[in-house]
């Protein structure tokens, strides 16, 4: 997994690529929680190039979400390929996270 941080229209975006699994979660956690700690709001996550996410990866986003909610911040997940989206909807996590079709939709939300 790779993590790239960028900014569009003044909004911070964390773009991820590859498989987010047990071995990738520590890096993801470090990067994500650093942004949460800085109260980056809103924080957009670009899933366009993510091929798979396992429960340890999702748990990292749950931790991020809880951290954001603590100060009223918004965590927005966007651009999920259908396979990844299925993992979220299968676990009813689409009711937990704000999920957008594309990163543009998330920027304009």
């Amino acid at each position, binding site marked *: 997994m790779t993590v790239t941080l960028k900014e569009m229209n003044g909004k911070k975006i964390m773009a991820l690529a590859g498989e987010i699994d047990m071995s990738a979660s520590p890096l993801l956690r470090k990067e994500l929680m650093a942004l949460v700690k800085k109260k980056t709001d809103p924080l957009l996550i670009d899933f366009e190039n993510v091929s798979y996410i396992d*429960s340890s990866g*999702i748990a990292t*986003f749950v*931790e991020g979400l809880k951290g954001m909610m603590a100060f009223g911040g918004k965590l927005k997940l966007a651009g999920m390929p259908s396979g990844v989206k299925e993992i979220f909807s299968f676990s*009813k996590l689409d009711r*937990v996270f704000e999920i957008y079709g594309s990163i543009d939709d998330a920027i304009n939300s």
Partner: protein
Amino acid sequence: MADEPLITVSEGYLRGIEKKVEGLKALFEMSAIISSTLDLNDLMQLVMEKAKNELQAEACSILFYNRETNKLEFEIALCTDKSTSDLLKQKVILDVGQGIAGWVAEKLEPLIINDVQADKRFCGDVDKQTGFITKSIVAVPLIGRGGLIGVAELLNPGKKDYDPEIFEILCKQFAIAIENALLHKESIAKERLRQELEIAAELQKSFLPKSPFFKKGNMNVSAVNISAAKVGGDLYDFIEPAENMAGVIIGDVSGKGVSGALYMSKIISDFKYLGISADSPDIVLNRLNALLADAPHGMYLTAVYLIIDTITGAARVSAAGHPPFILVTKKDVSVMDILSGPPLGILPAEYPYTQMDLSVGDRLFLFTDGVFEAKSKSGERLGFDNLVEFVRKHKDAKRLSDLVIDYVKDFSEGTEMADDLTMVEIAWSDIP
């Protein structure tokens, strides 16, 4: 003997030979010490003590090279004054390139300085911190097979006429002995960890039902649980919340390994406590969700919990973000994607229940995602639809659970199991 010619040698030559013999004796003694122990601390203590005495030095120390920080840290210091040794070990860290030891670590060359105060490389910080006055120094890099291990220093050696060649051989031997001791220490630590994990796995299994089979009234339950790591985060349990009632839960904690297992153990305890006092699964999941609200590291649980009347076959099912289960009847195979709340431990949420009635011959198959997310050698995942298809094809097989497990194993043959795999089968028959 008398015919042998007389050879005249100079006194200097004789002294040279004597020195060599002395050096070889020291080398021999040191070799004996080095091979006498694999304990790192003993080894360093013994060798440095010996070196200190041989060179009549006032103090000696070993600084270890920390690859991660690229710094030198005092590992052992033998000074006349113990408090100085303690001070060095606690506080002093040097950069590579800093001071005499730093220079030796950088250049990987030994250094002998008879007057350190006149040497620009000497950094007086350590002396300032310890109160020790360094006049002269012998510093050597300790280089093992894997590169720099550290730097050994002898301070204010009284003896100046030692054989540098012998000294160098000694240092090489010492470095290899340290490396061996470090490897030994590491292998002991690994072995200990392996044993700890084995105990953890055993302990964790003790939280699951003693037997994977459970029978009550017309209901027969069986479970299969295989952990990817030695310890895993999947769980299942059978309880009896009331007379003629059976509760069956299957769940998957996010995360595997020790953290998943620890959390799983806590959840099972919470579930046993909550489950025994409630006759409807929605109540239990709602309470469990509240209890797990402060889960660390975003950990959560997906679960399906059923309470079945073991006389009538009436069942209530609640789900929390868990994959759908499969109902196999005499006629049909259906995917039961019932009304569900999100996984437990994330947000305050409402968990409803769905009512179902089991008829004779009905079988329910509950899985964790490890079953259908199994990965093949070429990186493909089995997929839920393929799993359903397989069940459909073999719906009349008596040992369907075993067939499914074999199917998953065959699919992922040659790959390392990535996730725990749990499957629970609930069969309703007319034979009590």
